[in-house]
């Protein structure tokens, strides 16, 4: 009967632990916190003992559930520790981006297709129907109506458009990332949007299109951040997908996990860029500021990105020793 007495003796402790688990941690008083720790350790020991002494399966099951419950009460989720932000954003992330082949591939695809589509869309005499075929006559009409009036005159319309674009373009970017593990949809989406944007830019640059001036005055300021962000998030998606294929000697699953870890800094930077683009798009692009301020902003933001990617990202001797798990 010794085990029976033991269970009887421990039962009260288990039930009080169970009752403590019912309360949210924030409502524990100091004594309860101390008591919880002691009770949890005791329950762990009891579980170990219950298995050794071969107690009744129901009792063992009860203890498994009790320990699992207290375990998730005791160890709770880590938020981003503020002290690591700086290191993550200014060391880990730019270096990860600089050295990543997927980023290069995504940039070549996106900006390559963008430039080609822009040239084809602009060269009216050589490819008269290219822009119309890509964008569709309806879309072109919509653009022409949208950018018919000069900027400061209809702030509201532009602000509306800006909000719509923030959502639309950020969604494109994040979709490119989310579809990354499947690789092909990301490539298609990236190329498709590059063509679409390129053709729009090319069409608006035609000398015969009067709305072009308003269009460029609107897009100049935020274009840099936004286009870079789309390419970056697609790069992060590709990084995930490549994990399936180029395993580098790991199991496919481990390689996928490892590549997801590598993709995280890239996608975080693209989220920051989307946010900057959104701010620019909301407050600078549609505003009545003179055009040269917007151009200056675009130049400044490209310089900033260059500095971020190339100077902060340039591999130094200690970059090998910087633990990628430092965050």
């Amino acid at each position, binding site marked *: 009967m010794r085990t*029976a007495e*033991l269970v009887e003796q421990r*039962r*009260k402790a288990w*039930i*009080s632990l*169970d*009752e*403590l*688990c*019912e309360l949210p941690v924030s409502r524990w008083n100091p004594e309860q916190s101390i008591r919880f720790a002691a009770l949890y*350790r005791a329950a*762990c020991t009891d*579980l*170990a003992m219950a*298995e*050794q002494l*071969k*107690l*009744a*399966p*129901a*009792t*063992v*099951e*009860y*203890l*498994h*559930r*009790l*320990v*699992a*419950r207290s*375990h*998730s009460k005791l*160890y709770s*989720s*880590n*938020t*981003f520790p503020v002290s690591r932000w700086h290191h993550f954003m200014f060391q880990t992330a730019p270096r990860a981006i600089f050295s990543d082949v997927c980023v290069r591939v995504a940039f070549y695809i996106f900006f390559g297709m963008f430039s080609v589509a822009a040239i084809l869309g602009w060269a009216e005499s050589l490819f008269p129907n290219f822009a119309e075929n890509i964008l569709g006559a309806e879309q072109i009409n919509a653009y022409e109506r949208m950018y018919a009036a000069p900027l400061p005159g209809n702030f*509201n319309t532009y*602000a*509306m458009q800006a*909000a719509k674009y*923030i*959502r639309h373009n950020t969604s494109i970017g*994040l*979709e490119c*990332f*989310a*579809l*990354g*593990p499947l690789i092909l949809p990301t490539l298609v989406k990236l190329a498709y949007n590059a063509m679409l944007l390129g053709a729009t830019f090319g069409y608006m640059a035609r000398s015969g299109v009067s709305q072009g001036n308003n269009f460029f005055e609107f897009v100049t300021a935020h274009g840099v951040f936004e286009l870079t962000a789309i390419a970056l998030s697609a790069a992060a998606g590709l990084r*995930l997908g490549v994990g399936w294929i180029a395993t580098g000697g790991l199991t496919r699953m481990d390689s*996928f*996990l490892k590549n*997801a870890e590598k*993709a*995280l800094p890239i996608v975080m930077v693209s989220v920051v860029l989307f946010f900057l683009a959104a701010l620019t798009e909301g407050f600078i692009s549609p505003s009545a500021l003179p055009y040269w301020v917007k151009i200056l902003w675009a130049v400044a933001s490209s310089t900033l990105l260059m500095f971020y990617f190339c100077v902060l990202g340039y591999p130094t001797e200690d970059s090998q020793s910087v633990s990628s798990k430092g*965050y």
Partner: protein
Amino acid sequence: MIRCQTECSSRIAAQDQLPERSTHAMGAQTPLDLTATVMTPENVQFEYRLAGPFRRFPAFFLDLLVRLGAMVGLFFFVLCAGIPNYLPLAGTLGTILLIVGYFLFDWFYGLFFETIWNGKTPGKYASGLRVISIDGRPISAYQATIRNFLRLGDLAPFASLQMFSAEAPPVYWIPTAGVSIACMLLTRRMQRLGDLAAGTMVVIDQRTWAPPKLKLNDPAIDQLVPQINANFRVSRTMIRTIAMYVERRNGLTLNKRRDLASLLAGALTESAGVPSSTDPDLFLCALYKREYDANWKSLDKTDVPKGKV
């Protein structure tokens, strides 16, 4: 059996690497069992029960409703704020608020809640689920980011109504969630793509649970116990099977009990030295009682004084 680890780190012990788990309770050694074993820093190994697609769908659906509710709430806020025309929320600004709000709810809802609520969203809270790392530790904000940003990939491939009929209304993005279902079926911990990338799994979050009341107070059982041959020993697997029967027998009808019990008891009565005419159900209860002496006593809270926590 408890494996003592020298290093004090939480780590998962995959079930297939643990042949000694055959001594574990409740028949957990079968590969079909939906549990994940976790080694705690306290050097104790315990099990989490994993959640599969059918448990996770209601949580997903509830989260969808919560997000929809939040959007409707925001819409009415914008609408009401616009009525007196004091605030410039009605027109442009209101629309901007709605669009940006939609974007935030759409992409950052799961990330936000899983980080601050320790791996739970409102939907998961309601359906009793929690996301944890595969090593049993709580989810980190990084993991929450990866698994939530990848949700769209999990909902692929997308169907459209045009696939069925050319005249159908233009609905192009119907998520079929084929990727996540395939992923959950193929992985042992039933992870979706985002879980695989983030190294997380979804477990059933234990609420308070008491083992079933066994009701073994029948004096016939007590009479039967001493009749069993003192040298009679049942194998570990057999006694566990018997335990699984006895712990569940309250939910069975009398006929069903007799059917099941006679299957188990048939071969044992003779070597145990009890007459073969003994009721098989009572015989199994007696074996259970003999093996686990009195610790079958129920573990519910009713007879413990409250307020002593």
